[in-house]
């Protein structure tokens, strides 16, 4: 009986507080909708308040998004993620499946993802290293 209760608590906790592939996948689906299809109404669901503020505000962020080439020219991407070793932070790696390294942008990026009001949101990026 005690084992069952523990299992139920763990199960509920996971769905209430845990982060899984599905929730991270949904975040990056929304992210690509914002960046590729210019669905700017999703900005608040994708980025943290801090990120938007540090981007120069919502107006500036929207202007940056609209300056990107349209979705037809965007390469396919793959995403992998892991939980950070300290604190409630996640690192998601987004890789563009392309050989085109023009435009000075990286074909790979590491995103900092945190929870804001219980929802996963992008809080920034961090330079690659190792």
């Amino acid at each position, binding site marked *: 009986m005690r084992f069952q209760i523990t299992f139920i608590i763990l199960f509920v906790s996971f769905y209430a507080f845990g982060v899984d592939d599905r929730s991270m996948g949904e975040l990056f689906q929304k992210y690509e909708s914002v960046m590729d299809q210019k669905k700017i109404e999703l900005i608040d669901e994708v980025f943290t308040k801090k990120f938007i503020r540090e981007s120069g505000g919502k107006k500036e962020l929207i202007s940056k998004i609209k300056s990107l080439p349209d979705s037809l020219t965007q390469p396919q991407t793959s995403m992998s993620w892991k939980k950070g070793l300290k604190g409630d932070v996640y690192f998601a790696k987004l890789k563009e499946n392309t050989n085109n390294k023009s435009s000075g942008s990286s074909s790979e990026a590491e995103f900092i993802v945190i929870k804001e009001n219980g929802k996963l949101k992008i809080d*920034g*990026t961090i330079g690659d290293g190792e």
Partner: protein
Amino acid sequence: MQQNKFSRIFISQGFSDFSDKVPEVLLKTILLPLLCLFTSLPLLGEDCYNCERPQRFSAPVVNPWPIEYVTIHKVPFERNDKASFCRRPVEMVDTIVLHHSETPSSTTPEDINRLHLSRGTPEDPWYMIAYSYNINSPYSGASTPKARVTEGRPMELVGAHAGSEAFVPMDESQKKMWDEGLITCGKENQEFKVNPSMIRDGKIKANVTTIGVVVIGNYAPFSRTNPNGYHRNNPRYPTKSTQDLIARLSCQLQKKHPKITNIKWHNYYNATSCPGSIKEYISKIISQTRKYGCDFK
């Protein structure tokens, strides 16, 4: 003559005759102000990028910088004692590698350390901040953050910045140090051993012969893989002050470690957007170091 507080100072320093002969008014109004002015003149130079001036009259410190072009701040960084790291003689280092952090310019080295401690895997975590020096400097037109250089991972520890798959040739002295087993890896409070994986086809990991200098900020354009980047209609470049700060730090490092004669950039070693537009200014930065008496390739 009754002693006033000014003449008492001179008496205590063996100038009793002087205080007797010089009138008190002359002492107060001309000589003492002049003395104060001349003793403070060396502190008024524009060789310091922040308000904390070098302690020129303090007690001698162990292993001082030969020339102080910029004040290097030290902050206590948390380290992960369960993580592996490698030690090297600082004489192994011949190259400065420039990075940008891809974070907002307001990010502190302590923030970067926290993020780096979170990276890696439970089996192979990071020891501490990957860069040896961190430069905070405002973007063009901005007044914050305050320009400041902070030491990161000590130079005698191998960094984690150029890319673990980047290997470079060794010169004779570097090869000798490797052959003598002076580059060793391990964990705190454990025995350090030579790690053969540091060498591939006679080349050594670039992290062993370089130090990472990061300019905190994002100098690459906004894109799907760089949402922190600058607006494409408003490109961001390192300001003259930022370039000068990099030059001063580089020169200061060369004065202390003459083997450091190269300045490279992250995507010299790895396919990455780092360090963004800073790369376009490397030759200007190298020219700037010549003004301080340094010579970089």
